[in-house]
């Protein structure tokens, strides 16, 4: 570490770190010498990246393939209104370079996959998992275990957050527990809350992502006791915290990267295609007064935000209310983006052999974008 020097400008910038006795110049040098890969620059990634950049991590990698959406701004504080539609990783890098010109920021504007995971992880010392889905979480975990990297983990749902430090090097040369020791398998897709049932208090990733950043800094500097072998839980609604023990599971075996979509029970889209209709075609049907039924499978609160006048049958009730769906004319089913309505059609086809159902491609979002911009998006 002694070959890494801090310039006078850096010494001034990091003065409040250097003033902490157990941190000192040595701790700051360790941060400068460290390479951290942050996977996901969304809710968790925003505070993570902001604090890690501000703290002076020498090389900060950002993996994200997504673009900024207006609905991100409620919690993803890296981005502004002007950034909507722009790639997240590039936009984040631009913001962080203004925050700290002393650090090297690498943009990986790509999806984190089984094909590139090991290559990406190998370029860094520590990984911070700020992703938002089970397949990527297991992939991040397994890649870290195979590459021998510490995985600083956090996850959020509504008012609740989890934090842990996985695969941390222990004094005896072994590694601490990893995500699969805690949760050997993911829930099947049917038991995972869908996008409308999900949701998150905007400030929650700010709290949890900041704790994650703190653990990254502790792992790098060796200051304090990292959260290895423990799982931190926070419930903002009741303001309760718990720290639970996590043990290694002798049955855990990670030998290679696998197909994580398959592992999580997610079938490729092409195998489960349903008949579709474009928003432009639906507009034509409406204009010419065609006889068809329009069903909206979103939740009531979403209907209140924006609707196309369809009959509201939330996805969770579609099977029991199938009798309300007409079998003698074409039926267009829609949701916000087209995902839940496709699930509804598959369920109705499977349970009741409907053959007259059409999924509105892109949902009410596409309608708002292409047909009627007065329809609010959310």
């Amino acid at each position, binding site marked *: 570490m002694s070959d890494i020097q801090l310039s006078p400008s850096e010494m001034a910038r990091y003065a409040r770190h250097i003033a902490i006795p157990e941190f000192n110049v040595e701790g700051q040098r360790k941060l400068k010498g460290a390479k951290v890969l942050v996977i996901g620059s969304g809710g968790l990634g925003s505070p993570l990246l902001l604090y890690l950049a501000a703290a002076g991590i020498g090389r900060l990698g950002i993996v994200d393939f997504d673009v900024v959406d207006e609905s991100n701004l409620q919690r993803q504080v890296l981005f502004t209104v002007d950034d909507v539609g722009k790639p997240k990783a590039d936009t984040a890098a631009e913001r962080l370079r203004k925050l700290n010109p002393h650090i090297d920021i690498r943009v990986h504007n790509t999806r984190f996959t089984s094909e590139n995971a090991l290559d990406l992880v190998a370029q860094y010392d520590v990984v911070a998992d700020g992703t938002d889905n089970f397949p990527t979480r297991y992939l991040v975990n397994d890649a870290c275990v195979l590459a021998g990297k510490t995985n600083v983990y956090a*996850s959020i749902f509504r008012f609740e957050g989890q934090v842990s430090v996985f695969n941390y090097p222990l004094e005896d040369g072994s590694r601490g527990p990893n995500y699969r020791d805690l949760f050997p398998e993911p829930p099947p897709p049917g038991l995972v809350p869908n996008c409308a049932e999900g949701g998150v208090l905007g400030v929650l990733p700010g709290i949890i992502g900041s704790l994650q950043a703190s653990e990254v800094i502790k792992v790098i500097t060796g200051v304090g006791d990292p959260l290895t072998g423990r799982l931190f839980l926070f419930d903002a609604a009741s303001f309760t915290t718990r720290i639970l023990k996590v043990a290694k599971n002798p049955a855990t075996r990670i030998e290679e990267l696998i197909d994580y979509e398959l592992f999580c029970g997610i079938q490729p889209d092409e195998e489960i295609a349903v008949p579709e209709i474009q928003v432009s075609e639906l507009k034509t049907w409406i204009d010419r007064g065609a006889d068809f039924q329009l069903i909206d499978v979103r939740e009531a609160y979403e209907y209140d935000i924006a609707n196309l006048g369809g009959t509201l049958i939330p996805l969770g009730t579609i099977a029991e209310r199938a009798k309300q769906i007409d079998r003698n004319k074409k039926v267009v089913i829609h949701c916000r983006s087209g995902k839940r309505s496709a699930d509804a059609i598959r369920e109705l086809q499977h349970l009741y052999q409907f053959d007259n159902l059409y999924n509105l491609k892109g949902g009410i979002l596409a309608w708002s974008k292409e047909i009627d911009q007065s329809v609010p998006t959310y």
Partner: protein
Amino acid sequence: MAKIIIPTPLRKFTDNQSTFETSGRTVREAIQELTTQHQGLSQHLLDVNDNIRSFIRIYIGDEDINALQKDATAVEADTVISIVPAIAGGAI
């Protein structure tokens, strides 16, 4: 009575209640009482053989029941049982 803390993703099956009081004397009895009263929870907590699902951990205090006597672990009047599910974030 012992208390079970219900995590956010499962509260839709408990009429939004965040805790459940139980007189069960073991973890198994406590979970049975919970799933009998809130039947929708059953498939989320238990597999077809009535074992705790692999994406759910059950804790007594800060100890995983797998490090104790699993679902035979004794429950006292002041025991706090936590159900801890895997959560991934916002996307599906």
